[in-house]
Every structure is written in structure tokens, then in C-alpha cells.
């Protein structure tokens, strides 16, 4: 069977497409049809010729097969050091084979490659730091995902997620109206406590344009409210775009590069329309990677930069604390052992390790912060990165992967984990659900709101009595 009713090569382009695939609960038929999905080897070869150039080919060729990458991989370690989990092995038996066979691979191979690319690698790129030749296996698995996606071999949830970006320019079905209404609702909801609080939509030439993760308006609107409250307290001149507010890109996890470009270009268009001095993104790792680190390249920007300076939420928080825009009430600082989760996407792969620690120095009473081991650039993935959290088919593998973070947290002895990344936050929530180690986990926003001093002129009337 060339292509099925649910499983096919073309991307999801319309709302009907998405609803149709969603109707196939847990992708049962989708995966069944995938077992028969033929590989368009001519197209695969064409794609290789066009996109697999000297960087990747050299990486594949000169790999010394030394195995120094093995211990760098948390999935290798957590899976009882199974040799099949060695990063080099994972790359050589997937992308390596495709390249050596010049695209002449069959369905069975592609199914295997899909399993490797989405359940044995989170594209955290920790291995890149351990390879003597500087081979970045995370990048290669990500590239392989793109090849697999183009042939229709992609986990069901990510095919849908990618379709969502194509149809709604958001990872979930949040329309422009939904978003603007949520902003209005959240401003109203908190107006009493914070007089004058607004969520200004589409203000031109503001100092800050804020972008977020569609899950926030959809499932945790209070996160949007918290962002607004903190900007309000800090006295920022800020805005959100009515369109182009969604910063994430599940399509990046899916390897759907065309959708990645559509998604990020939408944000850049908003930047160009509203001309903010700079953009602040939410507490999300992959969103930062998509919009700030990789996005400029997807959109063909030769300087590798977004249209305006685009910073991660932790950078804004650190700056606000440093400059005194946000002042912490010393009595309310955290006075219990607390640890910090370093997100791979903006720490290892963007260099913000010291920025989050600067924040810690303001909000945690000295002596209570405990580092995980290893940490900073060498920290392990939360266990759910690269789309791993969202794929039902690989839930068992994901849950096993969570043990790494569980043990790292247990070793700190802390009951509180600060996780300024949606994906890490989810993984840590899930590991608590799975292993019940009695921890709490939090974003920065709710923590800050609890401990920040509210300037007199912003307090509600009754408090002034």
C-alpha cells in the first residue's frame, strides 16, 4: 500500500486534516498503516543530494568509532548501558545507513529509524561536547527526523502538532480571537489586585513585545497573567501581538522544516509590524531555540539574528533584578533547599547558565541553593526533551528516561525544583507522578510574584490604609 487514509507523506494542511487524524485515537490506524507505507526512495535521494553536505557527511565519515560519546548520553546510562543506545551507533544505524544506501531503504528500516530518532534521542546535543572530532549527534538525529518526516514516518502526535502550526500558527488550536480574549480576561481577572494592570495588544514601538507558548493561553492562562503582572510591577512598556504571539515549534521536534519557517516567520512578521525595541519570550526552552537560535536560519536571515533582539525570559528577569525594576522582599526569599533545572536548549545550546544563577542569587537565601550534578552545560536532559514528552507510543521509554532527572534531584536532597522551561517542567511533573518522590516544581513567574515588592503607587487602595 503506497499511502493510507491516516498515514501519508504529505503534511496536514487544513483543519479537516487535523480533525481527521485526531479522530484516530492514539494513532492506532495511523501506525498500522505506517507499516505498509512505501518509501519514495527517489525523493529521499533528491533530498539527501540537496541537504546532506560536507558537515554531516564528514561527521558520518570520520567518526572514529571510539565510543567516547557513550557515557555522555543519559539514555545510554539510564538504559543499563545498552550498546544500542550509544549515540554513534544510533546515528550510524539510521542516518549513516540512509546515506550509505543513497536513500535506498525500505519501510521496515524507516520504522526502526523512527523509533531510534524519537525514543532514543532527545537532540540535547550533550554528546557533541564529548566527541573528539566535534561531531554533534543531536544535530544529526534532528536532521534525520526531517528525512523521516518527509516520508511520513513521524509519531502521530508530532504529525498533528506540526499540522497545528501550519493551520493555526500555534501548536494548539488557539485562534487570534481566543488569544486576545484570554489576554483581556486575564487582565480583568487580576485588575483588582493590581490596579491599572493591562495586557496591551498590538501596541507599536513598545520597549518589549512578549511571546509565549500556546499552552499558556490554552491550559494555564494564569501564566499569561503572571507575565503581565511582572511587567506591570517592573513598569515596562510592553505589548503582545494579536498574531505572531506563539513562540513554540513542535514542527521542530517533528522535523517539518517548512512548517518551522512558517511558524517563526509569523513571529518575525509581528516584530516587523510592531517594531518593538526587543522581544522577550516565555519560560520555554524549545521555543527559544526555535524563535531565536534556529529560526533566523529557517527564515533565511543571513546574519542569523531575529529582526529585533530576542531574549529569553530568564534574561529579562535577571536584568530586572539587577537594575532594580523588580525588587525582592528579603523576608520572602526561598529558605529551603532548592535546585535548578538547566534547560538544554538555552543553557547548553545558548549559554545562559550564569544568567539563571544570577536570578537564584536574588531569590534564594544564601546557603539554600543546591546544584545538580552534573550541571550547567553538562546537565542532563530532563528526560522529556525533543518531543519525547508528547509521544504516546514511546511513553514507557520516556518514563524510564525520567529516572535520570529523578536521581539527580534526589541526590540534591531538595524538595523544590525551579524549572524555567515548559518541557522540563512537564517532565519533572511527570516524574513526580510516576515515582512519587515528594517534590514540588515551579516556573520562575509564580515564585517571583510571591516575593516581589510592589511599588506603593501600584498597590490596591485598601492596602494603603
Amino acid at each position, binding site marked *: 500500500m503506497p499511502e493510507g487514509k491516516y498515514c501519508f507523506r504529505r503534511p496536514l494542511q487544513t483543519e479537516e486534516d487535523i480533525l481527521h487524524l485526531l479522530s484516530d485515537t492514539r494513532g492506532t490506524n495511523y501506525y498500522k498503516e505506517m507499516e505498509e507505507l512505501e518509501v519514495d526512495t527517489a525523493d529521499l535521494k533528491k533530498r539527501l543530494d540537496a*541537504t546532506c*553536505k*560536507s*558537515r554531516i*557527511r*564528514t*561527521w558520518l*565519515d*570520520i*567518526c*572514529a*568509532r*571510539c*565510543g*567516547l560519546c*557513550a*557515557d*555522555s548520553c543519559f539514555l*545510554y546510562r539510564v538504559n543499563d*548501558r545498552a*550498546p*544500542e543506545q*550509544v549515540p*554513534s*551507533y544510533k546515528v*550510524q544505524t539510521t542516518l549513516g545507513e540512509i546515506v550509505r544506501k543513497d536513500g535506498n531503504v525500505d519501510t521496515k528500516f524507516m520504522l526502526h529509524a523512527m523509533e531510534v530518532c524519537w525514543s532514543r534521542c532527545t537532540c540535547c546535543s550533550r554528546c*557533541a*561536547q*564529548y*566527541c*573528539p*572530532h*566535534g*561531531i*554533534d549527534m543531536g544535530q544529526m538525529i534532528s536532521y534525520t527526523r526531517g528525512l523521516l518526516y518527509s516520508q511520513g514516518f513521524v509519531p502521530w502526535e508530532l504529525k498533528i502538532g506540526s499540522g497545528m502550526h501550519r493551520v493555526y500558527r500555534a501548536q494548539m488550536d488557539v485562534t487570534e480571537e481566543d488569544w486576545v480574549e484570554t489576554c483581556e480576561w486575564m487582565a480583568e481577572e487580576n485588575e483588582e489586585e493590581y490596579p491599572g494592570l493591562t495586557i496591551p495588544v498590538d501596541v507599536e514601538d513598545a520597549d518589549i513585545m512578549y511571546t509565549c507558548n500556546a499552552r499558556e493561553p490554552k491550559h494555564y492562562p494564569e501564566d499569561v497573567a503572571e507575565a503581565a503582572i511582572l511587567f506591570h510591577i517592573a513598569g515596562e512598556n510592553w505589548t503582545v501581538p494579536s498574531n505572531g504571539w506563539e513562540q513554540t515549534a513542535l514542527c521542530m521536534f517533528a522535523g517539518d522544516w517548512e512548517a518551522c519557517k512558517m511558524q517563526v516567520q509569523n513571529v518575525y512578521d509581528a516584530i516587523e509590524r510592531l517594531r518593538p525595541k526587543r522581544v522577550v519570550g516565555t519560560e520555554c526552552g524549545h521555543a527559544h531555540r526555535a524563535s531565536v*537560535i*534556529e529560526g*533566523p*536560519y*529557517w527564515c*533565511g536571515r*543571513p*546574519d*542569523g*539574528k531575529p529582526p529585533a533582539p530576542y531574549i529569553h525570559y530568564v534574561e529579562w528577569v535577571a536584568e530586572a533584578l539587577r537594575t532594580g525594576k523588580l525588587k525582592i522582599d528579603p523576608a520572602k526569599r526561598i529558605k529551603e533547599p532548592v535546585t535548578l533545572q538547566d534547560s538544554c536548549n538555552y543553557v*547548553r*545550546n*545558548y*549559554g*545562559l*547558565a*550564569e*544568567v539563571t544563577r544570577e536570578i537564584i542569587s536574588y531569590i534564594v537565601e544564601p546557603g539554600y541553593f543546591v546544584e545538580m550534578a552534573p550541571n*550547567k*552545560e*553538562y546537565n542532563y536532559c530532563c528526560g522529556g526533551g525533543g518531543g519525547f514528552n508528547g509521544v504516546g507510543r514511546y511513553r514507557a521509554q520516556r518514563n524510564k528516561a525520567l529516572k535520570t532527572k529523578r536521581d539527580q534531584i534526589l541526590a540534591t536532597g531538595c524538595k523544590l525544583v525551579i524549572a524555567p522551561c515548559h518541557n522540563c517542567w512537564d517532565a519533572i511533573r511527570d516524574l513526580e507522578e510516576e515515582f512519587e518522590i515528594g517534590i514540588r516544581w515551579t516556573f520562575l513567574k509564580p515564585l517571583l510574584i510571591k516575593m516581589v515588592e510592589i511599588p506603593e503607587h501600584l498597590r490596591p487602595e485598601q492596602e494603603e490604609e
Partner: protein
Amino acid sequence: MYEFLAGPMLWVTFTVFIVGCIWRVVRYVRGLSWQLDRVAYRPHFALGAKYALKSILFWLVPFGSRSWREKPGMTVLFFAFHIGIVFVPLFLEAHAVIARQRLGIAWPSMPAGLADGLTVAMLVAGVGLVIRRLALPEVRIITTGYDYLLLAITMAPFITGLICRLGGGEGWLLAHLITGHLMLLAIPFTKLSHMVLYFCSRAQLGMDFGIKRGGERGRGLVW
């Protein structure tokens, strides 16, 4: 035969070796693409170059990178092997003599005792690398016949050379010349091309981390 291998064939081998290596580097650099690699090489060249150097140098120093420090045994094997393979052929007294007599080049050389020590260390390390490949499951699974072949190609000139030094006859000298030519000729055409591509690949990753993954913030490739 000896006359040919230590004479005209030297020119052929050196030409193929040098031109081949240059060709590998040129092909590598020409195949880079700012958009496919997603690294703005040109607009941020100075920053990229700084990190390219950082990326290369820390791995050339024993225990310079975190990876080397975490695997001290492998680090010792690796450096013993590579120091021998690079410096002995380059600065062996006997080679300097040939360079002077046959090619008319004045070439420096190292004391014979040092060369002997480095050769033995290199061969012991080579055997260690083979044992490591066989003993460690995480290395065994990715090892192929090709990897052993390359070890054989690189160790052969050293084994034969050492036997010559210990008084082996004409035959061993011939064997040494043949294996030496073979190794040099193999470099541009096999994975041994990492002799030059190591620098390319490390520089590329250095530029990647320098330009877009932390260099601007003073992080990126923290060893």
C-alpha cells in the same frame, strides 16, 4: 626496488598525500552552507574563529577537555598513539638522512632513544586501542573491520621500522618502505583523512557554538 621506493616513489607519494589532503579540506569548506548548517559563518567570522581555535586547542592538550578528563585511560592511549604517529616519522634521524640525501632538504631530527621510546609507546597504545575495541561493549558495537584495517595500516610502518632498528635485514627495510608509502597514500582516501578533517570538523563546531550557541555570552564549548 629500494631505490625506487626511497627515490622517485617518494615524490609520487608525497604529492598524492599533500594534494589529497588539500583537496579534502577544500571540498569540506566548499560544502559548508550557512543556511543548511544554520551558522552565520561570515557575518560573525571573528567570533567564530576565536571559538574554532578554542574548539581545536583544548582537544590537542592531554586532559584539556572534559571528555579527556572523564576517560583518563583512553586519553593516555590516544595521546601515546598520536604523538608517536605524528612525531616519529617526521623527526626520525634515519628519515632526516633520506630527506637530505634524496630530496636535498635539511631536516631536524630527534634523539634516537626518544624515537624508540615514542615508537614503543605508540605500538603499546595501538594494542591497547585494539583491546579496548574488543573489551568494551559500547565500543565493540560500533567497531567495524574498517577500524581494525586502519589500525593495521597505521601500525605496520612502526612495527617494521622498529624491526629494522633492531637489526632486521633488507626484507624488513623493504616492508617498512612499502607500509610507509601505503599509510601516507591511505590518508587522503580513508578515514585517516581525519588528520586534516579533524581541524575542519572541530573548527566548524567551534564556530557553531561561538556564533549561535553561547559564544556571544562568553559560554559555548565550556571545557
